[in-house]
């Protein structure tokens, strides 16, 4: 017994030591690179308080003034998510390994992965150059953005559906369309709709900042206020955005909970 115990050596710590050293070096280099300064943060934090303090008393006229761009932000998010969801349907099927063959799936996923790495603001900037300033560019950017998210999440849940109905459809000689319509769609639909609502929440947040590159919505107003150093307005816009996003999140989460 004592011999057997002796043989057990504690696992080598070399691997962890090396990993730790690499990480520590990365932190030092990064901290220098970003010119991090805790003192600066401590000195500067009161500035945020000052900015927020200007919100009192609230300027209701300004809130009414920015209501229209805020509504435009929501409209952009709704339309962008809807178009993204419609576009995603064929891609979801093409990216699911239990529906299509290996080659199709790999190519589709490669396209998807590249689409998802491109930031939505970059899409927005390009679309602004193509169709001009305004919400239309924002909608197109949000369409591509939501398309990436919805497709990724839904194909992952399509791949985990119950294979029983799929086999049954194959056994009775269904063609691909029947196979998808009667065995895949009924199983995947609730998850798909839930993901669409989730993506809508994400899109509202994204939509609020697209205006920074000229793609419409509340971000446009925010950009102007920032450029003119009107920090009272900046604070009002931020507060308003916070309220709207929380409101939409709450409603959308309720709907999602009912769905699944």
């Amino acid at each position, binding site marked *: 017994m004592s011999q057997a115990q002796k043989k057990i050596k504690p696992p080598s710590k070399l691997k962890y030591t090396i990993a730790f050293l690499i990480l520590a070096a990365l932190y030092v280099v990064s901290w220098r690179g970003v010119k991090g300064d805790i003192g600066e943060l401590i000195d500067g934090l009161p500035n945020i308080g000052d900015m927020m303090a200007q919100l009192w008393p609230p300027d209701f006229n300004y809130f009414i003034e920015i209501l229209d761009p805020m509504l435009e932000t929501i409209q952009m998010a709704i339309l962008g998510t809807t178009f993204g969801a419609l576009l995603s349907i064929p891609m979801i099927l093409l990216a699911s390994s239990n529906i299509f063959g290996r080659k199709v799936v790999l190519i589709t996923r490669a396209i998807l992965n590249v689409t998802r790495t491109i930031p939505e603001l*970059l899409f927005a900037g390009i679309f602004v150059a193509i169709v001009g300033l305004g919400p239309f560019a924002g909608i197109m950017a949000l369409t591509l953005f939501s398309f990436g998210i919805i497709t990724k999440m839904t194909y992952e849940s399509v791949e985990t559906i119950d294979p029983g109905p799929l086999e049954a459809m194959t056994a009775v000689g269904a063609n691909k369309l029947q196979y998808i319509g009667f065995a895949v769609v009924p199983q995947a639909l609730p998850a798909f709709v839930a993901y669409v609502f989730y993506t809508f929440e994400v899109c509202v*947040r994204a939509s609020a900042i697209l205006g920074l590159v000229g793609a419409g919505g509340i971000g446009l107003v925010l950009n102007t206020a920032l450029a003119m150093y009107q920090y009272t307005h900046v604070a009002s816009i931020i507060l308003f955005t916070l309220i709207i996003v929380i409101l939409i999140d709450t409603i959308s989460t309720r709907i999602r909970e009912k769905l699944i």
Partner: protein
Amino acid sequence: MSQQNKPLAAPPKTLFQKIKLALYVIFFILLYAWCFSGIELDTSKIKESLPVAGRIISDIFDVEWSFIPEDEGVIDNMFMTIAIALLGTTIAATLAIPFGFLAATNMSKKNRWISSVGKRILNVIRTLPELIVAIIFIVAVGPGPFAGVLAIGFHSIGMIGKLYSEAIENMDESPMEAMNACGANRIQTLWFSVLPQVLPEFMSYALYKFEINVRAASVLGMVGAGGIGTPLLFALIGHDWNRVGAILIGIILVVMAIDTISGAIRKRLV
């Protein structure tokens, strides 16, 4: 037998269900009518914009390679972007630990309100987009990558804290009970029975958020918070599409490389 062969029909809808369905349909029609009313769509403009789109896309593919190794070019700025994401994620991953315990329902069984308050706090932190948080921190520390680090560090607490709390809720509680039974205090229980269980998952979630944050950090520069976003904004404003192409290559390659590496590490962790 013959009765069983009859096709099964769905039960007829009650009047109430029919009204409910009709109301939903009307609601969505009105909703979309409202959305489209706000957006002016000029079809003649679309025809005009097609050749513009073609030119821009071909310009993007005609990459300005010289901008990649240049001083303050793509490589420099991508390193800065990764540094912002790394530091921000680390700050958030550390600060999120107390929030995760606060929000986990099985850590405060007697006082349920504690965990619901914790969850509420995490939700609010997550609400504002990173870019807006970055603007707030720029007010504090001035423009620069440090503001970006702080923005990522603050904003990520929301999501990381939520994932932590779920990891804590899903752990095996018997080691905790064993510790309690042999008279360990709360700190000892946390240290010897909770942390060893949740640490791999914590690290995995932090890495996952790091992947997301690299994407987020690549646009922070657009509001002046450092990284590749700053040259990207200038290139977009100046319609310097060849340069946008170079930056795009940098972002795509770095994001995909980090996703792959981090994904491989995460597989080994959990």
